[in-house]
Structure formats: structure tokens, C-alpha cells
């Protein structure tokens, strides 16, 4: 029997029975939105449950919604059941003032670098991460470049030298 979206939704609702757990299917990809503190329980259940077996973490990333008060930052997990070839997206929202999220490194070793990258670009604080430092950007960087809080062109910039080519 193929793993259907209805089956996943039914199992999750039976297990957690939480009204804050919402489901949608944009472009046919099942998306679970959960409260931030539930992320590990959900990942663990999706990983262990015999009929679900989401055992491959494709990616962790984040989105910044500057207009959503109290839930500015969205952390997105992409999971994959390799056996049934079914994908699942999980979203949690955290406020930009306190972007604390439990780390998934205990469950997926591959989450280590993904979380470092997400921290690097969005400043998500993964609580319990063994080595949370910047991975792609220079170590001296003191801001999170992918947050939507900067003007498109900064007139006060000093590192852009227009002498040779100009704009």
C-alpha cells in the first residue's frame, strides 16, 4: 500500500491530537505546520513510526517574514521517505527576538551543517547544537545576511569602489 497524505495526516492527528498542528498541500507537497517546541517530537515520530519512516533529512532552511509579528522566522524541514519515495515538509515559526529551536542533530547527523548554515544566514539559535558557528560566511560577519531587514542598496557602503567600472 502506498503511503498517502491522508494516512500521514490521520496518524499525526491520532498521535498528537493538537489543534495547532495544521496541514496543507501546496503544489501537492504535504506541509505540516507545528508549534516550535514540538519539532523534535514530530521528527522523531515521523522517523520511527513503522508506516511513515521519514528517515532522510533532505534540507533545513529558513524564511524571514518581517510582517508576521511574533512569528517572523520560519524554519523549514524537508523529509523524505526513501522507501515509498514520499516527501514531506515541516514548518515551525519562531519570533525574531528569540529564535530558539531544538536541534535535530541527535536524530539526523546530517542536520549539523544544515543547522549551521541556517544559523549563518538567518540567525536561528539551534539549542543543543554541538558546534553552532558560521559555516559559509566569513567568521567576522556580525549580521545575518538573508534576513529581510536591509535596504536594497546601502548608500553608506565603503567597500564598493566605482573608480574602475562604475554602475
Amino acid at each position, binding site marked *: 500500500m502506498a503511503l498517502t497524505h491522508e494516512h500521514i495526516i490521520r496518524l499525526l492527528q491520532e498521535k498528537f491530537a493538537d489543534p495547532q498542528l495544521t496541514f496543507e498541500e501546496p503544489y501537492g507537497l504535504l506541509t505540516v505546520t507545528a508549534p516550535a517546541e514540538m519539532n523534535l517530537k514530530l521528527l522523531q515520530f515521523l522517523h520511527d513510526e513503522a508506516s511513515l519512516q521519514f528517515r532522510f533529512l533532505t534540507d533545513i532552511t529558513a524564511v524571514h517574514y518581517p510582517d508576521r509579528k511574533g512569528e517572523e522566522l520560519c524554519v523549514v524541514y524537508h523529509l523524505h521517505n526513501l522507501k515509498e519515495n514520499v516527501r514531506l515538509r515541516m514548518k515551525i515559526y519562531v519570533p525574531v527576538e528569540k529564535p530558539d529551536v531544538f536541534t535535530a542533530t541527535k536524530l539526523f547527523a546530517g542536520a549539523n551543517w544544515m543547522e549551521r548554515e541556517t544559523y549563518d544566514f538567518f540567525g536561528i539559535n539551534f539549542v543543543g547544537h554541538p558546534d553552532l558557528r558560521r559555516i*559559509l*560566511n566569513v567568521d567576522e560577519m556580525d549580521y545575518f*545576511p538573508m534576513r529581510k531587514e536591509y535596504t536594497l542598496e546601502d548608500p553608506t557602503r565603503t567597500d*564598493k569602489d566605482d573608480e*574602475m567600472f562604475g554602475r
Partner: protein
Amino acid sequence: MPRPVQYNTNEKVKLVDMPEGYMGEGFMATSFEKVVGLARKNSLWPLPFATSCCGIEFMATMGANYDLARFGSERMGFTPRQCDMLLVAGTIAKKMAPILRQVYLQMAEPRWVIAIGACASSGGIFDSYSVLQGIDQVIPVDVYVPGCPPRPEGILDGILKLQELVENESLRRRHSEPYKQLMASYGIQ
């Protein structure tokens, strides 16, 4: 059957002109600077530092069609310690800036730098938080080659321009006060 030699005759091998000097029977006198300039100009050892598409154009420049070897840059040296001419071809991320600087520092004097393409010269289209806005922010540059990417002809032109600089460079330049000030402005001893 005698076979005439068809290669390495003087019509096929191009020689550089002799520098000005005083010549007599069995001797020739000229200035040391001219001889050194001539030698350096025609045996520049290139060190390619290619990170993106400009590097591909540079490979074409090295290939048989454009053949950089015609200008005395026969062999790429992939160690900075052997090379005279650093060719930076491509976007340099801010994270790579210290590595580029290290490569430059490992080269022995006299050393020259060509910035190939818009990215190496000014950051190019990557007006971004992660990209170095021109390599001249970390190392001094002698010749800038514009283009995105420049054609191999452009790169050859840049190298010929550099050869002019090398030929006419004073032997004392690297000990001069302005040069020391230039190095000091980049924080290089």
C-alpha cells in the same frame, strides 16, 4: 636523400630585438636594467588563480588557438613560489580574500598581478555581502582586464600591457619609497 631542415630556421623562430647598446668586435655593452627587463618580460611565469568563467577564458588563452606560449609564458606554475605573474580570474568571495592574499605573499619579488574580468577588478555584478569588491582591496594590482568574461584576446592584451610594465620597470622600483608605501597601505612588509 638529403632532407632540408624545415623547422627552427631563423625565419620561423622570432627573436626579440637587441637592446640599445655599444657594440664592437666580440663585445656588447648595454645597461643592466635593459637586459634584466628583457629577460623578465619574455619569461613571465603565470600563476592562474581561476575561480569561475573568466578561468575558462584563461584556459582558452593558454590553449593552442590563442597560445600564450608565444609570449614567453610557456608553463603554468601551480606554486606561488616559482611564479612572477598572478592571474586572478573570477569572483573572489570575502572568505577567499585571506587565501588570495596568502598566495600573493608567498610569491617572491618581483611579482605582478593581473585582475582578469569585472569580478576580480571590481566585484562585477556581485554587488553583495559575500563578494570582495575588487581584489585591489587586499593586494595591489598592476593590470585590469575588463569584460564579463573578457575574450582571450583581451587577456592576451592585458598580458602584453603587463610585459610593457615589466620591461620598463626600474630595477630600483621595488626598493623605492613609493613602493614601500604602497605595500604598507596593504599591510604587507
